[in-house]
């Protein structure tokens, strides 16, 4: 099961966070900083999975941006690693060459995309067209 998904830049600033299990608001910032430190400390040739407390972190770097996913022990790390990539490909398709700023200026839309892909910590949709369909419909209606 997926516990949370974070998008953090190299400076350790959170750009997006989504928790699928309740974590107190006050504790999130410290937790995120701690986890990102753990991921940043790792070298390129080391594997993309780190143990953190009683769950595993799967992280993947895109330029200056890290995507970190917290999962339970019984989850398949590699499939999550690829899920992250699928997510980025979806973002790329929607924003046509996504950048950190796209994500910042469209925080709500990135969340809407994520809500189509992961619900309650489970992967519910991976088909790119279907993930984007509701959002594109919303955009169309907002314009029209």
């Amino acid at each position, binding site marked *: 099961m997926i516990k949370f998904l974070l998008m953090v830049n190299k400076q350790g600033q959170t750009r997006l966070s989504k928790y699928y299990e309740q974590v107190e608001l006050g504790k999130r910032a410290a937790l995120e900083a701690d986890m990102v430190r753990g991921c940043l400390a790792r070298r390129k040739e080391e594997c993309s999975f780190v143990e953190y407390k009683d769950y595993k972190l799967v992280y993947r770097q895109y*330029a200056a941006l890290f995507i970190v996913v917290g999962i339970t022990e019984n989850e398949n790390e590699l499939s999550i690693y690829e899920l992250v990539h699928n997510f980025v490909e979806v973002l790329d398709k929607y924003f046509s060459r996504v950048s950190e700023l796209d994500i910042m200026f469209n925080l*709500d839309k990135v969340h809407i995309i994520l809500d189509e892909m992961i*619900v309650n910590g489970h*992967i519910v949709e991976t*088909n790119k067209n279907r993930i984007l369909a509701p959002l594109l419909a919303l955009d169309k209606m907002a314009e029209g």
Partner: protein
Amino acid sequence: MSDVVEKTLSALPGLFDNVTQTGAAKITSGLKQLIRSITELTSKHEEEKLMKQELSAMKEQVSSPNTSMKQMREVMVRAMYCEMLGYDASFTYIHAIKLAQQGSVLEKRVGYLAVSLFLTEGHELLLLLVNTVLKDLQSTNLIEVCMALTVVAQVFPKDMIPAVLPLVEDKLSHPKEIIRRKAVLALYKFYLIAPNQVQHIHAKFRKALCDKDPGVMTSSLHIYLQLIRESPDGYKDLTGSFVAIMKQVVGGKLPMDFYYHNVPAPWLQIQLLRILSLLGREDQSTSEQMYEVLDESLRRAEMNHNITYAILYECVKAIYTIHPKAELLEKAARCIGNFVLSPKINLKYLGLKALTYVVQHDAKLALQHQMTIIECLDHSDFTIKRETLELLFRITNAQNVTVIVEKMLDFLRGCGDEHTVIHLVGKVAELAEKFAPDNSWFIQTMSDVFSIGGDSLQQDVPNNFLRLLAEGSECKEEDDELRLFAVDSYLTVLKGDASHLPQHFLQVMSWVLGEYSHLQECVDQREVIRLLAKLLDQRSVSSETRVWILSALTKISEGQTDLILELAESLSSSQDTVLRQQAQELRHLSRDSQLQECVLPRGAPWDSMEVDSSLSFLDGFVSEALAAGAAPYKPPHQRQEELSEERALNLEPYSFSLPVSLSSCSITDRQSPPLLSVSSGLSGNSTELSQKEGSSTLILEGVRRVWGKDGYLPQKETAATAPPVDEPSIAVHPSGQQEVAERIETQPEPSTRNQDKQQLASSLFVGLGTQSSISLLGKSEAPPPRFRKKPRPHESSSSSSGTSERSSDSSSRSSRTTTDSFLYGSLLEEEPVTSTSTTTNGLSQNKHTEGDRRANTSQILGSDMVIVRPNTIQDRHPPSASSDLTALLPSEIKDLPHSDVISLTSDPSLSLASCRMFRDEALLLVIFICNCTDTVIKDVAVQLTCEELETASLRGNVVDCLEGKSTSVCHYALLMDEPHTNVSFTGTVSYQTQPGHTNTLPFSGTLSTVDFIRPLVVTTEEYGKLWLSLSHDVKQNLKLLTDAGGDPLKTTLNALKDALQLHVVDIIGSEGIVACRLLSGAPCLLHCRVNGSALAMWLRSPHPSLPDCILYHCQRALAEH
């Protein structure tokens, strides 16, 4: 992939203009300004300042009536930023709900999004969302329906599910796939939070599984994975469907947009593989259905892409989980080889993880990859190393334990991560206990564990160790030898510098020295006293440890009055009152050797000690305090509950306030019974103790007591079961070496290995390949643990401390025990009927239960049957002709409490009647088959079906020949795995009156959860412990029975006890605690409190739906009263 996100922060300033131009229309100035400021932040201080500003600006904006919905949407995104950075923006929550309600589409979506991000399950504002959701679900605009379903699948108040359920159900047949898909996901959410609510729509789940759209089918798999995990037996019939789906997916039948990097729906494949492995587990015929598709899956996944490896990993796991097939296992093993040998580090990791899983079933595989494993052990990557140790932990046996433990300790010494240390140290302790080759190694390893584990070590590690020392094994000489080793070793440690040692270690040492230093004759007791006293002077020693040390000193003080008095003198002016008190006791005891002997008898076994865990010796004190006007004790959770009630609006009339009184303080320990407080009950004799309370209040906290007044208890285990230490493994040792050697020879790249590694390999993997026949399902038989703990009579039936009894044999675990049966995991035997005599054998608790049940009077339950629980069967006068039938019951079950006999069905030749008998571990459904004719009836066969129940055994359901006017008895032992309020069973009986002419006669009946509930006999203390560990809870106010003039709480609880077979654990003032369990194991704890004219009932259970069921029956029982 770096081209996906190319623009980095360094290019930020220039980018701003671009972005704002392209997206200018959408992004308003407030948000733009905020984002600009956020990117420019350089310190935490600045961030705080910015957020403070931002929050107050937003506060102003939301409260202004002129703010448009469009602006509100922007405010919501800003609030998301604030919350994301950890700043509370709760004042916007209500506006998020308003936006969802009033905004147009995109605004509405953002409103819903904000709700799902801000509000957690159970937030009271969620109730305000219900109407909006209802409206949107009925909207003609599909996008609105869609977003309503999305939010329902994320957060929705549990109590309001019935309001939207019919609408969501309707959507299952909506023409649009996206609506159907989201409806399925919403139902999945409902299933997770309130499984009872969606029980009736299981058929619709099946429809969703067969949906023509692959997306809808995929969504339904989440529900099925969950359902099958909970009870695989109920869904075996779907195996064919899952296999068919898998075949189509693997065979490329899906549309192209379901592909990810040319792999068809990989995440769907993974999900299906998980479902298949759950279904095929320990089930040969089901497994056979899936061999082909698993084989194909392995074959297809040849493409060199991460995602195919992710599928392969799941596939390999499935192959090793289901009933084994040699050919597939071989392929899977080869597949693991590809992983482990891969130069890609992520694949290597996954390979190790797969290997860790697989070696549980086939330890030989570790041999094949021993060189890789050794390389990974020295890998620079922490994660890889860690996973390798996990793997080694799984293959540890009596021969390689020293090497593996050494590796683990080495790793731990260089590891800074506290969580990893705690986790691994526990494993080292487990291995040491299980496989220790000799005493000195064991003591040394445990010392390492204590010093490395430090103060974060879990309490059960020292507890288990001390218990092991104290309980001993079958042989007293061996035990004493071990204890002696410990004493010697600790004396050496203490003679050195002890200032850096962790508290746990000091506690263990002082306990051992206090208890066993007398065994070592060549050591002067004065020296021991001096060493311990020296510790007291150290500043780093915590006050808890001081208590341990003083207790130890108390035990060895005999005959050393001068030293002790000196010590007591020096402590009598201590700041710490507990220490001062102990010093007083020490002084007192050292002067009175008779008292010393009586209080601290030397060498008595600790299991003869009885603990008055209910603290009954305080009853007098408590009632006096109550009489003097003190408030009754309230457990912490209730106090908290009341406190939170106070915060909300109080709609009830004012009642008494809650003064903190002496009595409530004095018995708070009831609620938190950690091991240490057990010591406050010195012996079972409460009256004697309460007298002692007055004279010499002896508090020896922190010391587990191991003596009793009686002598050494006789060993209960026979010599035959005593484990011969490592005899079998020694015998196979040489062949193991040989095997290793052979494997090494077949290694493909001999040049890369050096001799050190080979040596390490042979010591690590010794004893793995020696089992002549590989037991594929489950671990090959583990050697008996070296230190066998003595069985403890109190624990055998109701142990809640699962940590102490570690089962080393995983193969014997059946799938059923993996659910919630940590309390009552005992499995039924093949023929449980014969086991009745053993279950009641000597267990005082069972007698208790029996007594409870006998005391019950008759009680109407359900509309169709009347349960009569007679005082004793023998005394009972048969009230009707049908109950004559009970005389026909087989003698071994005759004495069980049972219901009345009711008629099931009849025809001119046969009549069927049934009766329910309540056995401790199952419900016996007894069916009486009466031949009403004068002629012989042949080939009578009864068949009973009930989907919700599990038949553990049956007897006598086929009768070759039934004489005229005679009756045959058959009985089914039934179990309920999943609580259902009521279940109905159907069945047929077939018989032949004339040869070749078969008649069938159908029958049916209903059973209720109540039939499957048994009292759970626990002490108040165990109840408290269990309560805290349970996760699912339900609260409800029930009717309080006030008739009969007695105490309403007692009257109500008794009524419930009679109706539901509950165990009333304790009644304290206006509260009662009650416990019961479902037959298969899951306990349910009930906490009842008189609240005005109602009974506030709070139920907890590890099982999500059990509280609901029990609550339902409680309500019913009280309504009928």
